[in-house]
């Protein structure tokens, strides 16, 4: 399923900037193929819907480790592991502001 999502905040700058739109593709069977550097949108229980880069994929545990690219990004430990079921989709296209 394809979704259009608007980016707010700048933790993924310079790759994604506030106001950019991204297209995401959700295919749960493909989540295990996500690799470090891929960008995903997911729902976080505390911070809401977030967009981050994958740093580690653990198909056995069905979780991802993620981070932002900006020096001020929230530490990965604070975000915690992202369960596959919280993933909204992998970003496959960006529409720059």
């Amino acid at each position, binding site marked *: 399923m394809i979704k259009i*999502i608007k980016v*707010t905040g700048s933790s993924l700058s310079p790759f994604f900037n506030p106001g950019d739109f991204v297209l995401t593709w959700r295919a749960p069977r493909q989540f295990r193929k996500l690799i470090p550097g891929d960008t995903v949108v997911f729902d976080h229980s505390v911070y809401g819907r977030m967009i981050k880069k994958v740093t580690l994929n653990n198909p056995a545990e069905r979780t991802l480790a993620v981070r932002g690219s900006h020096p001020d990004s929230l530490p990965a430990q604070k975000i915690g592991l992202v369960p596959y079921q919280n993933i909204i989709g992998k970003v496959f296209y960006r529409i720059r*502001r």
Partner: protein
Amino acid sequence: MLYPFIQFLDRTFHFSEAKAHCDVPCGIYDPITAQIDALTVVRMMDLMDALAEGDDKSRLDFHNSISRYIAVKEEHAEKAKHEIRVIWGDFIKDAHVEKYPQLPGLVHKIMQLGSKCRQTASRDHGLALVDAINDFAEIFWAIKEVKTKKAKAPYAPGLEIVYPDL
């Protein structure tokens, strides 16, 4: 060329947003925004009640006003929940919960009362929401070792609010 088109679609369909922020630890937390949201909820309930007492409910103006009051009540009940969730998730630590073991239950109660305020027009639920968020504010300021005082908000509905006594 694509961006203006997507922007136009966004204005119509309101695409969901994904945060790449929440990242700078600004340390600015204050339950006053949630307290004002809760007051707004009660204010909207009062306005709805006053309007419902009028005799001509068939007028278009009645429906227009009541719809606006409900929309604002919905919005601020949800905002109150959001503000409390941010403090709960970002500021409150395990040590705080150990010191104030009533905190998890209180936060849960605020979430439920916020929902009740959306589901109903009961002023009692609104007042309970204000009280619960005041209780939360008292604990929040105690954690920050800031004294508090209670005073009536200087605007309708004029309910008592916990303020930091600076």
